[in-house]
């Protein structure tokens, strides 16, 4: 489990204790700037915001965490009985709430459910398309029941394509979305990996990945039937 942001810094002792006992790794943040400064490279995996001591600061932080390209989710707010009205018109700023004083088991159960919904739980995710199956949790791929031995980048490329069937991608788009970092291969590396994937899919499935002349590649059938 990755790092959860917790407001305020330091958080109320019962919040800290509950998170520790439930096995979450967390970091206290005092506000929006603080949250940016301490954010791990792969982003916050979620946030718990205790609003009763400093409601204005709490909602400002919620807004900062949600109004960005990759909103932080799940986000649980802790409010006291007199703050219930504050929740109105702020539905986009949190995923769930809990009344203080809270029961530790309730906060733990709500967090567990929120993380499960967000895909960070134990639920294996499957992508399936016309005989191709990708298990996103175990990184394993198979075609017509036969396991595919793929390199990491082959797997990532196939996963990306299979998650967007029917859509045409240029080489540059695939390079930036799938590779997304400095790589010796350059843009033509996409062609190299497509060629390898087709070989590994085998002749009868190679046409799952189609070349769209002078544009790029498409996985599966076009939505327009072309």
């Amino acid at each position, binding site marked *: 489990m990755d790092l959860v942001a917790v407001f305020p810094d330091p958080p109320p002792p019962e919040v800290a204790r509950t998170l520790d006992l439930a096995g979450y790794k967390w970091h206290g943040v005092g506000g929006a700037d603080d949250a940016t400064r301490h954010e791990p490279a792969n982003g916050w995996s979620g946030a718990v915001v205790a609003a009763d001591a400093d409601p204005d600061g709490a909602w400002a932080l919620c807004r900062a965490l949600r109004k960005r390209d990759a909103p932080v989710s799940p986000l649980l707010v802790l409010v006291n009985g007199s703050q219930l009205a504050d929740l109105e018109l702020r539905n986009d700023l949190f995923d769930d709430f809990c009344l203080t004083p809270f029961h530790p088991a309730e906060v733990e159960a709500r967090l567990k459910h929120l993380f499960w919904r967000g895909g960070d739980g134990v639920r294996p995710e499957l992508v399936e398309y016309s005989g191709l199956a990708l298990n996103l949790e175990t990184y394993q791929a198979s075609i017509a029941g036969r396991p595919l*031995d793929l390199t*990491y980048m082959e797997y990532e490329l196939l996963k990306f394509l299979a998650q967007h069937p029917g859509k045409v991608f240029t080489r540059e788009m695939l390079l930036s979305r799938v590779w997304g970092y400095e790589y010796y*291969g350059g843009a033509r590396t996409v062609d*190299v990996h497509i060629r390898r994937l087709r070989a*590994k899919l085998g002749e009868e499935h190679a046409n799952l990945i189609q070349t769209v002349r002078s544009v790029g590649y498409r996985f599966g059938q076009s939505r327009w039937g072309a």
Partner: protein
Amino acid sequence: MGVLDQQRDYVLRTVEERGVRLIRLWFTDILGNLKSFAISPAELENALEDGMTFDGSSIDGFSRIQESDVLAIPDPNTFEVLPWGDPKATEARVFCDIHHLDGTPFHGDPRGVLRRQLDAARELGYTFYVAPDIEFFYFAPPERGHAPVPLDEGGFFDLTTTDVAGSLRKQTIRTLETMSIPVEYSFHEDAPSQHEIDLRHTDALTMADSIMTFRLVVKEVAAANGVHATFMPKPLEGVQGSGMHVHLSLFEGEENAFYAADDPNNLSLVAKSFMAGLLRHAAEITAITNQTVNSYKRLVPGFEAPVHISWARNNRSGLIRVPIPKRGNPYATRLEYRSADPACNPYLAFAVMLAAGMQGVKEGYELPPEADANLFEMSDADLGKLGIDQLPQSLSDSLKVMERSSLVQDALGDHIFEWFLRNKRSEWRAYKTHVSAFEIDRYLRAL
């Protein structure tokens, strides 16, 4: 998770899910021999994080005794399940970069040498792509002191039953494809039992790794069928030897930097100066591209191997050919460097080719005129008038030129440069003391 973490995670999960029992850590010594040691899955996580320590002095040309320990750090991008062996005890391999214990790159590591050259080209915005055409022979299992026995007498593109090695080639290609090495063409070559497999272009680092895998796969598949495969440059006298023609291009993003629509040959200035760099420094890099005594028995007139330092569009007697791309495809504009042989160290060979070409680009070398006549039929005097030199005629000659080359010294780094010269000079000395059958036949009775 960062990208590196994700790659490690992918490797660890795959090992678990596919029941991999053994992971082979691969790296390459200075002469291009594949080296390997195996670890169990339990050690893999630690190896991916911190590398595995081993005694470098046990590898020829690696470290000196007093600083012998080095680290092999697996490159998780190259992790692959091996398609042979016992299906119940699956094995996998991963290529390694070699580092000092303090984490700095180890200068005896050929993969590191190529990385440095690729980084330098990338600083200037270029990606270096290569595609090799690799020739090799199939023989009956060799016996010491006996001439090699070809498996068949088939000719070029022969599809008769005499092509007994055809099924070997098919099995080989299937194995290569499952190991992420796409094959472009394959065919029976001119000489008896000689075959060629052309690999589809990739970036040079991936290709150097692929060639290491390729040579192993060709030999493994042959051995499993009781046949010996060899990449020796000239195993049979009087027929053509085995070369590794390398198709080279530079890309800038999606654009082929070698292509120019407005040039009569569709060659850009970059292509011309890169080619000029290769030509000017060809003699200096020959010891690396042709590193055995035997290599120079291939580089003789009459067997489609280059002898002269020249270029042409469709003349196979020169060092560099500029193939005419199908339908004028801009992506296919490239240079074909024809002297290298498949017994070279591919990391070092690609590194010095790139260094020579980039020197031409950086300094704006002028491309000499095309030599479209058949150079094999011209006299030395005529060649001299055209300013066309020959490639070094022996390992000794090429070492002498390399020794004076600051370009090669910079590209390889002092460690490899010095060790290579020492090692190869001693190979030459050993050869020089050998009295051959040629000499006995020619001189014993007559003198």
